[in-house]
């Protein structure tokens, strides 16, 4: 599939889960495809990073379900900050562990899972739909009943896949990408490279095969598909570009220019514009040639 074909499978009003963590291994090419779509009123479930920020900036999001929206090296995602302070996006604010538990409940087709996190904090006040549950055993302990976070669709990005949807992460952290896929009605995986099934174990050990084809409905090959977030070991975070993104987000004029320069065309033109940016950075920092 292409990124735009994945976006074509989504519908306005859907609940979309996005894998990765902060500014790490985000399916950014799929997010950019949504930016080119007419999708609206999405509910986005994410350990949020620039995926959430870009979708908010593009006007595609009704509600964010998250524990944070961060660029890691920049503590707070600038579009998310602005949208919150202007009141233009709804928010389900959860403890990070509660989000994990909601995905796990949905993956296991359970209505909820009990968790201690959230008790006594303002999370229940911010989420009046949350209920507690009492242990039916002798302890009788009362816990938060974290509801399943069921997703209409999940979008994740991995290092390698085969064409059937067996997917592999080669970095250090699987994040929660397998749970996002299992929690979703349909799951779409973009990857740096599609390889023959027999080639998967050339890159990593069997335990790096995070998702299998029973969990995946479509595969997209997209080199640089996580840019500007990290996709180690294929590439690290593009900190210079992320700084450019965050600076542009700080004012409306700057953001219009950023959109025109990077987001007006398709994925190929985005990657071309990124190469121009990298070249300009390199020429800025090259030392003067010796005489």
């Amino acid at each position, binding site marked *: 599939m292409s990124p735009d074909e994945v976006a074509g499978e989504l519908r306005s009003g859907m609940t979309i889960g996005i894998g990765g*963590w902060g500014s790490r291994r985000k399916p950014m090419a799929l997010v950019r495809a949504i930016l080119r779509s007419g999708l609206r009123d999405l509910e986005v479930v994410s*350990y949020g990073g620039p995926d959430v920020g870009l979708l908010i900036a593009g006007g595609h999001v009704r509600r964010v379900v*998250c*524990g*944070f*929206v*961060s660029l890691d090296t920049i*503590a*707070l995602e600038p579009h*998310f*900050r602005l949208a*919150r*302070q*202007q*009141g233009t996006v709804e928010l389900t*604010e*959860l*403890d*990070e*562990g*509660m989000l*994990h538990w909601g995905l796990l409940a949905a993956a296991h087709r359970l209505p909820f899972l009990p*968790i*201690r*996190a*959230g*008790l*006594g*904090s*303002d*999370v229940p006040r*911010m989420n009046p739909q949350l209920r507690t549950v009492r242990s039916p055993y002798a*302890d009788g*302990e*009362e816990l938060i009943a974290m509801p399943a976070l069921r997703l209409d669709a999940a979008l994740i990005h991995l290092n390698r896949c085969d064409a059937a949807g067996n997917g592999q992460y080669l970095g*250090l*952290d*699987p*994040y*929660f990408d397998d749970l996002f896929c299992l929690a979703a009605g349909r799951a779409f995986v973009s990857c740096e490279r599609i390889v023959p099934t027999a080639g998967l174990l050339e890159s990593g050990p069997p335990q790096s095969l995070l998702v299998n084809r029973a969990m995946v409905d479509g595969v997209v090959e997209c080199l640089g598909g996580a840019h500007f977030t990290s996709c180690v070991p294929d590439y690290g975070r593009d900190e210079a570009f992320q700084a450019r993104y965050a600076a542009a987000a700080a004012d409306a004029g700057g953001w219009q220019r950023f959109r025109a320069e990077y987001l007006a065309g398709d994925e190929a033109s985005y990657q071309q514009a990124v190469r121009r940016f990298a070249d300009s950075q390199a020429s800025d920092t090259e030392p003067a040639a010796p005489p």
Partner: protein
Amino acid sequence: MTTPAPGRPPGPGVSPAMDGKKVPIAEGGPSRAEVCVVACAEAWRGDGAILASPMGLIPALGARLARLTFSPRLLLSDGEAYLLAPPDPGARPGADGAGPVIEGWLPYRSVFTMVAAGLRHVMMGAAQIDRFGNQNISCIGDWARPKAQLLGVRGAPGNTINHPVSYWVPRHSRRVFVERADLVSGIGYDRAAALGPQAARFHELRVVVTNLAVLDFQTPDRSMRLRSVHPGVTAGDVTAATGFPLAAADGVPATRLPTAQELALIRGQLDPDGLRDRELA
């Protein structure tokens, strides 16, 4: 013991050696940042083989110092997914294998499990904290439409209900130490008490370390208490910078000074470039 001094010691504290590497000079009184590093380290005293999770540079230096000295069984992560073995987890593993030894794998899903299992003691920041230790890192103003969106609750609710928590506040002020937090991310002792002894049985706020003082909750009603003041700071300085009445014993002691060994470790091994001073700037 060296003379207490509130600021940086006279002189640069480090000098270039023949090979260009910075070598610590053992003399010179401890700086405020160094007192803070040791005060943060003290938060983990007595902790066994649990994950120490410091947020911020000075807490990170403190956790590493604690493991190098009086809490050798602590586990420390590299901030990604590795647990790094002693003696020093400061650097990323080197390609030549010269870097620190990896002793474990700790992706985020395992961090959550360690949290729920209670095998962790975190030192978090606080945009606001009240007299019972209710902490806010989420937003300032009304949550529905905040004046300032901050980090969100992140892991603070789960941390505070599951395992020991301490706080680090690099700028002690009435903006941070407030009568009432706008929103409660990490729960304090009054809220823990309201939950009852069963739900709150794992709740423990250890200390609050600031640029001025060390505070704790060792009072009959578990409200915040001034435990010690850093050299050059008076109890009056601390109460003036605190937006609620602060319990303080007569004759508040001074925060203990770094030992010569601790100073040598901080200056020579943990933070040879002196980045610790910037966190207090």
